[in-house]
């Protein structure tokens, strides 16, 4: 094929301390009940294994969907790619270089990021939100503005109408388009998307999914997208990895996942959604 992998993960492992030394205080009742508190100083720390040996690769220009329930490790997996999470073990390489070889700020500016509810800065106008990464990169103002308008248009938002609005003046779908435009602003070769369409109503969601697919085909970006929505995964992915309990159970083209789901969890999960 001669194609290069934009992202490679090799046997990546990550566990989070749930309780014990260095644990973040958590609300809610201890699973062992109140008596456990008395011994808490001596208790060994408890861990939650988020990634239990994940290996994945994404070719340039391809869309990889990480599909799974909440808690399956798919978001943690995504976040190792721009070093929002540092793995305990294993190797992560982005654009041909190991993530630890990157300056972390530089890495993040080179990788677009879209999250549910978009995470727009509420005190920035739409145009300023879109032009954020170019601004961080030190582009001159005129070039930033031009770029923001261009991307609003690409995202199907009329620049004259939307540029000066604040995020709270937009509908959910419009916010998500702005989020996407922002991720694309500095023309990153790689896009990470975490449940990007999760908060939208079914009609809007379907329309934006189609637009995204068309846009991706046109721009040729590499995309890693996280979702728990089986139809969305099958519709958007060039390739789909089904995850559970920190492992990749099956990796294949959407058609394989739909027609030959692996015995057990994958079949139950896919069928429950499609049948």
């Amino acid at each position, binding site marked *: 094929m001669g194609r290069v992998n934009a992202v490679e993960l090799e046997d990546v492992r990550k566990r989070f301390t749930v309780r014990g030394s260095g644990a973040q205080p958590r609300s809610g009742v201890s699973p062992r009940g109140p008596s456990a508190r008395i011994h808490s100083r001596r208790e060994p720390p408890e861990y939650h294994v988020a990634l239990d040996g994940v290996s994945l690769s994404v070719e340039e220009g391809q869309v990889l969907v990480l599909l799974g329930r909440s808690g399956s490790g798919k978001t943690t997996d995504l976040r190792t790619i*721009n070093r*929002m999470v540092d793995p305990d073990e294993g190797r992560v390489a982005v654009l041909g270089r190991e993530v630890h070889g990157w300056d972390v*700020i*530089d*890495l*993040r*500016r*080179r990788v677009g*990021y879209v*999250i*549910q*509810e*978009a*995470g*727009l*800065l*509420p*005190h920035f106008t739409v145009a300023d939100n879109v032009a*954020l*990464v170019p601004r*961080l990169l030190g582009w001159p103002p005129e070039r930033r503005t031009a770029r923001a308008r261009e991307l609003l248009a690409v995202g199907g938002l009329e620049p004259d109408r939307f540029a000066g609005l604040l995020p709270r003046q937009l509908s959910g779908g419009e916010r998500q388009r702005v989020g996407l435009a*922002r991720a694309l602003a500095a023309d990153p070769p790689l896009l*990470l998307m975490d449940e990007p369409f999760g908060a939208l109503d079914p009609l809007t969601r379907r329309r934006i999914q189609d637009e995204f697919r068309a846009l991706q085909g046109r721009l040729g970006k590499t995309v890693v997208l996280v979702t728990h929505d089986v139809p969305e995964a099958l519709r958007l992915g060039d390739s789909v990895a089904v995850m559970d309990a920190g492992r990749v159970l099956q990796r294949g083209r959407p058609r394989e996942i739909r027609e030959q789901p692996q015995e057990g969890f994958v079949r139950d999960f896919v069928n429950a959604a499609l049948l």
Partner: protein
Amino acid sequence: MSFLHFLASRRAELMTLTAQHLVLVAASTAAAVALGLPLGIAMTRLRRLARPILALAGLVQTIPSLALFGFLIPLPLLGGIGTRTALVALILYALLPILQNTYAGINQVDRTVLEAATALGMTGGQRLRMVELPLALPVILAGVRIAAVVSVGTATIAAAIGAGGLGTYVFRGIATVDARLILAGAVPAAVLALLVDALLGAVEKSRRPFRAATALAVGTLLTLGAALVMSRPARGTAVVVGSKNFTEQVVLGEIVSQLLESRGFEVQRKLNLGGTNLCHQGVLSGELDVYIEYTGTALADILRQPAHSDPAVVLQEVRQRYRELGLVVADPLGFNNTYALAVRPDDAQRLGLRRISDLAPHARTLRVGLFGEFLERPDGMKGLLATYGFRFGTPPREMDLGLLYTALVNRQVDVVVGSATDGLISALGLVVLEDDRRYFPPYDAVSISSEKSLQRHPGLHEALNALAGRIDEDGMRRMNHAVDSERRDPAQVAREFLDGAGLVRR
């Protein structure tokens, strides 16, 4: 004369005090922001710090301001008598709301937004400047607003430590039981608080709060800079005269000041300071050059020595022990402001009361009024009853000094424990019972200054000794009465005394 006329008649002084007040508020709030904002941000980064720091700031709030001054005055750098100490106290009080709101404001920023900011490649500093601070700004501004408005109220206490401001009127008014004077300080302070609240409220609600806050901050700093440049006092050359915060002390402070002025000294008045300790620390630290103390107070309250009833012995002992502190006690002014038991003249006649001993057969049916301090003092109530061997039928009623004589005249009490020089004693024709067993220690008025002050101001010692033996109890009582009851200006009363005594040739 209406209240407004009253204010108008003091326009110039009122403007000066208001300006001083504003400077205190602006400077302390600005400094509290400069300290509290970085500290609040640090608390969001090092969360372990948050709880102890907030607890400490909260603890400071519970310290009454006079007590805080007491802690601060002896400190090098921060303390002393005057604006600096007042500012330090105001800053400490203003820190809590600013710390709290900075911490809370940054913590309430939406996690998703922070997550996005980080993932898009903002550095920690960029995230703080571009996301956290702007989004926390309304909450932080609300904290600054609370701090500033509270500070307008708290700054009145600055007068207790000689830092000026509108509290000067309040304290002077309390000392002379002059409600109009109290209002002359309190009403402008309240108006000021409303204005500050409105101004900061406008900044908070403005469409560009960041720009408005910056403009306000720059404006405040420029004004403060200008105030600093213009208000550099002629310190060093002037003799600083202090006084405690009651009528007699203010009158005596004026007498000393005017006497010194008539002899060519430049004088700076720091009258109405909040209590004995402040004045004592003031002369010790060199912030004050002279104030009037009472020998009994010096012995019992400052030196903590057992009381003695012989005036000469007490004076001798105070002089000697003060010398070890580097302080010089001038010759007594001539009056003894000791405790005095006073009764109504009709009772005195009917019951044959002339001396304290005469109370014994009637004590069970008499009601006594006093101010709280007298119950606690070593030379107070307990010893009095033990020395004279009688008891009153009902427990003593505690009341404010200013109310004692009103209660006596209105027959709510029958005996009051007041001071020998209380103006109302003469004015109301009350009978002071003779301390026939010489229980009360002497409280002879003497001027106190440090050796250093006397060296720095040649002729000061002679000038102060010129007052020796010139004021007796009755004279002091009449001057107190002129101020307390006739609402005369202490400065005017002092001038008339100096003229009458021939101490000043005009």
